[in-house]
């Protein structure tokens, strides 16, 4: 699944570790989501969307 996580994170000026800490997940998780290796769970997707003030559909896009 495509996502805009890296772009949105860069706009906020956050590192992967900072975002991971805010979401209480590992940096490996954030990296895996950004590189498309892993699709987040629904609760995590909602938390990500809330974090960036977006809807899930604005952040994630089916291939």
């Amino acid at each position: 699944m495509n996502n805009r996580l890296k772009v949105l994170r860069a706009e906020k000026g956050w590192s992967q570790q900072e975002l991971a800490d805010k979401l209480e997940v590992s940096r490996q998780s954030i990296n895996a989501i950004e590189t498309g290796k892993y699709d987040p769970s629904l609760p995590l997707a909602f938390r990500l969307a809330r974090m960036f003030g977006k809807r899930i559909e604005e952040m994630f896009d089916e291939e």
Partner: protein
Amino acid sequence: MLSPAARKYKKTSLSVMASYFVLFPLADYLALRTHPAGVSLWLLAAMPLLPIAVVLVLLGRYLRDEKDGYKRDLAVRCLLWGTAGAVMVNLFSGFLRIFGWKGQLFPFTEFFVFALMMLAAKLSYRVANRVPADE
């Protein structure tokens, strides 16, 4: 950095596996000294399995408690490959014997294969868990 679930698993499993290095030689020593038969033999053979069974239960608890979905997913995949490797090799040696192979395996082959496959699972988890420098 380890998650709370991973820290808890690591702490408990290390002490359990340490007990394995007591139970295994003890069972081996008792087998050589007492030449058990029947139920005694079965109980003696089950003795070294106890710490392994406990570690498997701890692994199950870790998978239940780990909140990070990616790490949980990765752990499951690595464990699956490690377990599959151990099962395949031990099944192969079993089939060799069933089909008439009369040769002698290295003593404790099944144990070493299992330990090796679990070590491979752990190493593959470590490698897969590495990420490039933070951006």
